[in-house]
């Protein structure tokens, strides 16, 4: 019996979007990827653009994103998703094209492709999931790993003096004239998730209206890589990640947002 058959219709407040496939998510329990996948597909369902949308999956934990999102998909080499998306969008300007990338993919090996796609104002959407670590390969230091944070390749904590400090690529690309909408969101609680969903809608509508690059960073957790329980990882994220990566809009309608 399906869950929806048990719950009476008047009590139904949430349903699983049929745009997610029936495949079981390969992410660790507690990880934010699944929620972000769902939110993106809910917006695509609500906008009625499933048949016109093409996603690009990166190398990293979300390499298998195409197993879960029921739309046309291309997998990409590590870091190259914005170039792959550029190739598709330039030839199919009326389709919706998005990349889904992690921090190692987007902010380390793919920095060049990220910056230049943003600078050209490619009319695509980049979903950037920043959990401060390389999850797929077992928890190595990422460009976004916080100062002092332990990982398998910074076992004594990140030393910004020798390893370089974490950097905010989202604030960097917001400076480029090609970016139209730049925001940083989270999905660890219902409130932030609802805000994140609104941001996804704004981004895809900007693409529909051919406004240029829309870029959403999701600050997320990696409870496995951080060696924490899911609850502890979310608490740690609030206490440590959010102060360095503050949530909220950075650029709206092509204008930088004044932030205190």
């Amino acid at each position, binding site marked *: 019996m399906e869950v929806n058959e048990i719950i009476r219709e008047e009590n139904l407040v949430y349903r699983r979007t049929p745009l997610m496939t029936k495949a079981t998510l390969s992410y660790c329990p507690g990880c934010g990827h699944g929620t972000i996948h769902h939110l993106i597909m809910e917006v695509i369902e609500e906008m009625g653009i*499933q*048949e*016109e*949308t*093409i996603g*690009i*999956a990166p190398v990293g934990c979300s*390499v*298998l994103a*195409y197993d879960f999102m*029921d*739309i*046309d*998909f*291309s*997998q*990409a*080499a590590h870091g*190259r998703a914005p*170039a*792959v*998306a*550029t*190739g*598709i969008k*330039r*030839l*199919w300007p009326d*389709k919706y094209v998005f990349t889904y990338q992690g921090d190692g993919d987007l902010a380390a090996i793919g920095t*060049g*492709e990220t910056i*230049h796609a943003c600078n050209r104002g490619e009319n695509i959407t980049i979903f950037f999931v920043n959990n401060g670590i390389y999850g797929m390969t077992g928890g190595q230091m990422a460009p976004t790993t916080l100062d002092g944070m332990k990982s398998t390749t910074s076992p004594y904590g990140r030393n910004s003096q020798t390893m370089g400090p974490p950097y905010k690529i989202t604030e960097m690309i917001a400076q480029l004239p090609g970016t139209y909408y730049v925001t940083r969101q989270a999905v660890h609680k219902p409130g932030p998730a609802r805000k994140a969903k609104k941001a996804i809608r704004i981004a895809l509508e900007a693409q529909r209206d051919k406004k240029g690059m829309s870029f959403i960073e999701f600050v997320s957790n990696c409870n496995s890589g951080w060696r924490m329980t899911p609850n502890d990882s979310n608490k740690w994220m609030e206490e440590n990640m959010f102060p360095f990566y503050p949530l909220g809009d950075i650029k709206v309608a092509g204008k930088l947002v004044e932030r205190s």
Partner: protein
Amino acid sequence: MKGNEAIAEAAIRAGVDAYFGYPITPQSEVLEYLTLQKPEERTGMVVLQAESEVASINMIYGAAGTGKKVMTSSSSPGISLMQEGISYIAGAELPCLIVNVVRGGPGLGTIQPSQADYFQSTKGGGHGDYHLIVLAPASVQEMADFVDKAFELAFKYRNPALILSDGLIGQMMEKVELPAQKARVAEFDQNWVITGKKGRERNIITSLNLDPEKQYEHNLKLQEKYRKMNEDVMFETFECDDAEFVLVAYGSSARICQKVVEMARDRGKKLGLLRPQTLFPFPTAELSRLARTVKGMMSVELSAGQMVEDVKLAVNGRVPVYHYGTPGGRIPSPEDVMEAVEEQYVGGY
């Protein structure tokens, strides 16, 4: 016109949908010619200068997945940078065209012509067991003709095709008869393209098979495809019918060797030339057949000896196979080659 310009003009006329590239000597004329020609007005072709060869090839990967005709060009160091992307394109079985106007290496090398990228072109180049379809033009005319041919083969086999030219063919000017303008294709094979899942199940472009059994099966399928390509092997023979000794050369080397054969024939010597037009598939069967009638062969290359290995494999010890090569961007004169032939094949001369 220049060989590089012929490639660019032929691309517009072949109805190519997009070119993504990055400047590098000695092939920059391709991108320059395309931007000057305003192909977006002539045919609607998209031309974009990417931030790197790495980005170019990944734009090709993305665009090729939508079933359109897309191409890039570069020269040796740039092609090296593209190898990861080319491996992905081969693994995902996407059609596209890559042009390599080869210069001398290794490293930054020289901007002078070379054929030292033969191994990289014909043996895969990037990681994994794969092959490209490799066409080797020996004239500006073939630079133009091979563009359409390369796309025909690339789509027939859903495999990347490479035109292996060099700085000599790319830069030299010859008369060329340009092909007629073709319309850009508007129908796409919905069995595999990613253009949105309208009216069908979704398609996925990927080279990832985490299950080793699936990856094994995928590799076997690729190998079967590469074997089938033998039916499209292309080569030319020159004075081979009664030849006692045969030169094997492609591209600019073949132009030099044609002169060598003419010189030898003037002296009454029975020298012939086999010129592969496709380097993958390689004219193995024809070389094997020739090995029964000639007394020796010599592979002449602008390299330290690369194609000679394939000639030896084809000949399989039946007759001696020699090599004459000038690596590093130096071009031999016909007399240089003639001297080498006489040295190796004294009996016949």
